[in-house]
């Protein structure tokens, strides 16, 4: 049913991604789908990488590691922005279209009051693209 699964990855907070990565691996194996890991980084030096190129290199290494886990074909795509905090939603929408993803799997936080002011990114992607969107809550919030 799904050919390309897109997974937005924040290398600085990889621990929060684990449930989403696990879901992605299962889905990819089940549908025999490709996985594209998408990274959005600042053009300025940051905690993970000092240049967008370094970020891409690290994301590639990450994707290869993930491939050892699930065995499905992987690719990466990195977007660099002067203001990643503000541009995140637009870049995710752009990425969904550019990698032709039919499923987006995203880690998300539990619902909270601030969502009214700063809406979640997954909702935005679902509103603006044709892809299916799977929002994965953190494991400790699931029980």
């Amino acid at each position, binding site marked *: 049913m799904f050919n390309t699964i897109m997974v937005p990855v924040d*290398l*600085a907070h*990889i621990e929060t*991604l*684990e*449930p989403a*990565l*696990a*879901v992605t*691996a*299962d889905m990819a194996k089940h549908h025999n789908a490709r996985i594209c890991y998408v990274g959005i*980084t*600042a*053009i*300025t*030096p*940051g*905690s*993970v990488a*000092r*240049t*967008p*190129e*370094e970020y891409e*290199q*690290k*994301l590639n*290494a*990450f994707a290869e*590691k*993930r491939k*050892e*886990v*699930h065995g499905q074909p992987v690719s990466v795509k990195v977007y660099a*922005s*002067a*203001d*990643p*905090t*503000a*541009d995140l939603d*637009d870049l995710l929408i752009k990425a969904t279209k550019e990698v032709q993803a039919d499923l987006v799997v995203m880690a998300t936080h539990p619902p*909270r*009051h*601030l969502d009214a002011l*700063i809406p979640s990114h997954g909702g935005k992607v679902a509103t603006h693209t044709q892809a299916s969107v799977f929002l994965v809550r953190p494991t400790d919030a699931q029980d």
Partner: protein
Amino acid sequence: MATIPDDKSPDDKTPSEAAPSEGIPAPEGAANLIDTDYVIGQDNITASPLGINVDLHGKVFLFSSIVILLFVILTLALQDQMEPIFNSMFSFLTTNLGWFFLLGANVFALLALVLIFTPLGKVRIGGADATPDFGYLGWFSMLFAAGMGIGLMFYGVAEPLGHYGTAMGGISVGEDGVRTDWAPLGAAAGDQAGAIDLSMAATIFHWGFHPWGAYAIVGLSLAIFSFNKGLPLTMRSIFYPILGERIWGWPGHVIDILAVFATLFGLTTSLGIGATQAAGGLEYLFGIPANDTTLVLLILGITLVALGSIMLGVDKGVQRLSQINMVLAALLLGFVIIVGPTLMIATGVVDNLVGYVTHLPALSMPFGREDANFSQGWTAFYWAWWIAWSPFVGMFIARVSRGRTVREFLISVLLIPTLASVVWMTAFGTTAIDQVVNSGITEVQDAALELQLFTMLEYLPLSAITSFIGIVLVIVFFITSSDSGSLVIDSITAGGKVDAPKPQRIFWALIEGALAIALLLGGGLAALQTAALTTGLPFTLVLLVGCYAIVKGLMSEPRSGKPEPRKAKTV
């Protein structure tokens, strides 16, 4: 659901693994990263109080907040005591250290100018193959709006008129043999043509190479050390060639805290004082009373629009507002040129440029000045002002300039804005002086400083429309300063991160508005602005270090178009 990713994920943030010892690609194309074990954000505190994520540099955020709070409380509580202290501090600086500001500004302007013509101008910010993030128009609009914007609105008419008056008045000497007049250089008593020439040269001097030279030095040094050397985008990074790894400790914290202090108080006090002036304009034009309610509403409105702009980000918020600004300013300028004394303005641009260059050596001379009132009260004051603003403007300029070559950067930050200032000052100044000289109108000269622009427009056609555009421009210029300033303060207090959570930037924009209102109602705006200007002194030193850092940093960069083999070399 058993497949948990390998723990050895590549984001592992231990310094030994993150250190770019091998296999780290350079910024796009060849460049020379600095080899440091420091990981950006390693001193940051991340937490989620009340579900709001924060990611802050603990010490810089904490201490700058404390310093800011302390100064605000002191100023509010002890207004009568604090104002004279700040004032005497500042006048001590401009009187006794005026030469230092003048000398420093000369160094900045000269270095920026010379670099354009050296082979170092070929170095590309962000690496040899980097591509610009913003188009020319958007980029330039942001440079200009952040750089001077608002000042042009207030001084475009007032300053040429002021200098013209004092120059015509000639030299007067007090009993102690010291000049008491405020005329530039040797004045031009009774010589109308000479006084016009001198007043325009003096005005352009204060809005030309020197201010933009200071901005260019901060912007370029930060851009090089951030995009090419891989250090965080905060003021401390340009000290790397001198202090090395010590910039990650207290010397670095102090520089960053100082930058936050200067930027926040610079912005807050301009917001407060600017709102007073905008309200004055509204009262003059529409009869809206300029009382506290109007002022608070104006500040709230400006803060709200600035909030919207920073939520939208640099690309869709700040850039668009700056472009709107640019279009409005161009319309107003075009209008004044067409309905004003067009021929005088056209020939004036060339004459004033020649006059500026002719008088430049004498005007910028740091020593042996006889026009003490002018060189200390005007020039040194302006230099302290521009230099105190330079961390904010420079950091913002740096952030949007990746992908430009050093030459392109300097031409756009130094030459084009200087030319734009020449045209702007000539158009507004010539029109105002023409009204005085040829039409005998004295109302403009007699009007309050902030109303001189509107009074001048009144003697031109369609003044209802143009004055309205003028007010809107003033307000939009404030918004663009407020939003880019909040972004700058946020990234300094986040240890150079530009991807810190959104609530932080909202916090800074709100603080600016709140402090402006508190100071406006409680008093002390002018006092705190003076306090912010005194940071011009330490920042002159910071900028001199910046000059050294630029040369040192650029020398170790491969020049664009002539790729050299990469060497594992540090600065």
